[in-house]
């Protein structure tokens, strides 16, 4: 169902999607903390403040760069990586492990922000063994779609 993701749940949602995401913060258009996950509440404000500074720095650096205003950024530093994405309403930043795949992290950020803004919810495929409730039979396998997104949702029992 569209529009079910709340700002409070957004950071958590991102961390659920990626095992490389350690902590995330969501800021509103005014730069205020709207949600966090992966850090204690005492640290969340500081993380949110740093995320706000990050895009201020991006806008400063952008003056020397060609192209449109940056929508996403990535910083690889010792001990980890930081990715951030923004829309006119929200800024979502995540601290990830150093080995995180940039393209996947950036795609997850975009997808979660799109879901927050009322877009379609992100669907996660589950393993066939997890999805089917009964014993694995040839008949059940024949009914499965090779592309789970296009097939029937087995959890509906259809």
């Amino acid at each position, binding site marked *: 169902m569209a529009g079910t993701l709340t700002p409070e749940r957004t950071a958590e949602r991102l961390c659920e999607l990626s095992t490389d995401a*350690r*902590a995330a913060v969501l800021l509103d258009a005014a730069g205020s903390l709207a949600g966090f996950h*992966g*850090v*204690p509440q005492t*640290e969340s404000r*500081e*993380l949110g403040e*740093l*995320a706000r*500074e*990050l895009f201020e*720095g*991006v806008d*400063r*650096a*952008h*003056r*020397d*760069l*060609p*192209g*449109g*205003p*940056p*929508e*996403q*950024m*990535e*910083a*690889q*530093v*010792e*001990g*980890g*990586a*930081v990715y951030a994405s923004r829309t006119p309403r929200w800024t979502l*930043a995540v*601290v990830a492990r150093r080995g995180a795949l*940039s393209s996947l992290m*950036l795609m997850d950020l975009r997808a979660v922000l799109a879901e927050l803004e009322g877009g379609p919810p992100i669907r996660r495929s589950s393993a066939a063994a997890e999805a089917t409730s009964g014993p694995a039979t040839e008949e059940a396998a024949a009914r499965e779609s090779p592309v789970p997104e296009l097939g029937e949702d087995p959890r509906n029992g259809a």
Partner: protein
Amino acid sequence: MKEKRKGPIGRAAGLAEGLAATVRRMQREREPRVLVYDETGYARLVQPNGRGYERLLETAEQMVEVVDAGGDA
């Protein structure tokens, strides 16, 4: 055209080249860097001598430190 078969020295040289490329790639990946992406996904590297580069790296490092201190709560 049929590819010329490599001898033992050629194969060893090929392996060494591959290894050197892997080491170079790993070193490059460890280097601090900042990239920005526009709405089309086009990436631009913020040059180390560019405006705001140091500040961006510092901010990102601080964010990692905050999370380290928080212990993945």
